[in-house]
């Protein structure tokens, strides 16, 4: 009898907690890894955006300067942006003075909601992308992430970034206006340390995602990144690249996806069959490979069919 009552009590205690567990978000707890003098990388989870990870899947970088911290990619939500801002303050002793958004995707861009739009800078193409797709992304993120997104509105960057040298707080940056992963992809070279912040033009041990990709543009951008001398590369997703392998790996995956889907259409496969094709062993280190292949099928297949299936 005693046992039963205890079981009931326990059940009573646990049941409501379990029932509401999904309703409330946790706290973002971004962790920084110092990769160079005055430069830290904050790793995202190498996963799909989901409630369990709060959407914190993209890498960010923090750079110390005399005029305040530079935050490259402010995360997915207002709370995420605030947590990254607090981390930057703790690491550099200064508040965030400049935010760069590498491109429009919500895991990189929507955390700008935590900052004054005047200090948020991006390529003009990225602002145009956000004007077009920002609200749609916002809907999608609220659906997936619910409470994690509270207070997050679409913030349009006010500062225009242009290709070339830039100085902030005494630190010299080389800014690159690229495209291919999206309509506007910003990369930043920190000249003092030779660290290249590549945004989502470069994925590392995590399969590249292609919802707004133009593969010829992407490849041309990879050429430019490879030609830019650097010692370290912070990819948009995945671990720090110390040996220059991430650019080649990204290029290899994109080429494989393009050829594979082309062949799939040419051999009469439908979309779901193409998404089940075997992934070569050389990509076994890439996280989320099957997931991204199936997403890429969705992005590219109808266009390939229109190109390759004979018109009657």
């Amino acid at each position, binding site marked *: 009898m005693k046992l039963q009552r205890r079981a009931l009590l326990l059940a009573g205690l646990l049941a409501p907690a379990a029932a509401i567990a999904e309703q409330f978000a946790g706290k973002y707890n971004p962790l920084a890894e110092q990769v160079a003098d005055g430069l830290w990388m904050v790793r995202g989870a190498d996963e799909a955006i989901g409630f369990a990870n709060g959407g914190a899947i993209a890498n960010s970088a923090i750079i110390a300067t005399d005029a305040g911290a530079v935050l490259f990619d402010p995360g997915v939500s207002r709370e995420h942006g605030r947590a990254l801002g607090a981390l930057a303050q703790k690491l550099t002793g200064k508040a965030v003075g400049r935010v760069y958004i590498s491109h429009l995707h919500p895991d990189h861009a929507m955390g700008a909601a935590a900052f004054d739009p005047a200090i948020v800078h991006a390529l003009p193409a990225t602002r145009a992308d956000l004007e077009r797709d920002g609200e749609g992304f916002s809907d999608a993120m609220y659906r997936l992430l619910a409470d994690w997104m509270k207070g997050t509105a679409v913030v349009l960057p006010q500062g225009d970034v242009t290709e070339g040298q830039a100085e902030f707080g005494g630190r010299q940056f080389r800014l690159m206006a690229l495209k291919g992963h999206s309509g506007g992809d910003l990369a930043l070279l920190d000249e003092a340390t030779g660290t290249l912040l590549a945004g989502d033009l470069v994925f590392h041990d995590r399969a590249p995602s292609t919802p707004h990709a133009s593969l010829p543009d992407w490849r041309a951008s990879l050429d430019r990144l490879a030609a830019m001398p650097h010692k370290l590369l912070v990819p948009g997703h995945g671990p720090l690249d110390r040996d220059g392998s991430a650019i080649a790996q990204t290029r290899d995956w994109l080429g494989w996806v393009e050829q594979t889907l082309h062949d799939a259409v040419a051999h009469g496969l*439908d*979309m779901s069959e193409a*998404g*089940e094709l075997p992934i070569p062993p050389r990509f076994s280190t890439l996280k989320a490979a*099957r997931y991204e292949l199936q997403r890429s099928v969705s992005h590219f297949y*109808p266009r390939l069919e229109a190109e390759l*299936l*004979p018109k*009657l």
Partner: protein
Amino acid sequence: MMAKLMTAALLVTASAPALAAPADPLHSPMWEHHAARLFGKDAVVFDQRVAVRIPEIAENQRIFPVTVDARALPHVRRIVLFADLNPIPVAVDYAPTGAEPFLATRIKLDQRTPVRAAVQTEDGTWHVGGSWIDAAGGGCSAPPVSRVKGDWADHLGEVRAGQWPEKAGETRLRMTFRHPMDTGLVENIPAYNIERLTLRDDSGRSLGEMQIFGSVAEDPAFTLVVKATGAISFEARDTAGLRFPGKVGA
């Protein structure tokens, strides 16, 4: 006490209409409704031999690929592809008269839903397979891309097709049609969709008959495996009576 309960249960069973369908392993809120409507008093079994192959993510809720492969089942008469929680649940009703029980196409998703195929064999039994897929809203209730772009009429009825040898005596056939596939659920755009697809071999023998509904994706694509080689002709017809014919292997 127990006896009373059993009596009550018996009474309920006796007074309720006989439900042929077994309990749903996917626990869909709409299962009993759809089962009663689609299967009536026919026998229903959940059967692993009905493979419903879908991606792990609905990347685009307007174009969600589904492959139904029931080639492990003998003597298939009919394949019904449906999504329980879509406002237009049934997407395709296919009679593979001279074809393998295999079908690949794309459907719209209006929310998280089970996606299933019910495959009827010659003995009348329905074999059901499928799984849940999470999806954002709007697959059925947002206007098609070609309506937003405004160029749907410029390409209406454009047909593309190809054929590939499958196993001996069989041909894999792929067909795509440019069509808005309007669901009627978007304000000021009435329902307008391809509603029928028929396939014949060179002698005029029927290879397949398909009823098609507005929950099939815009610019529909179909992949089928017919038990014929050589010239195969097909014709789609839409709800305005327009016909979109094609022929491969001629």
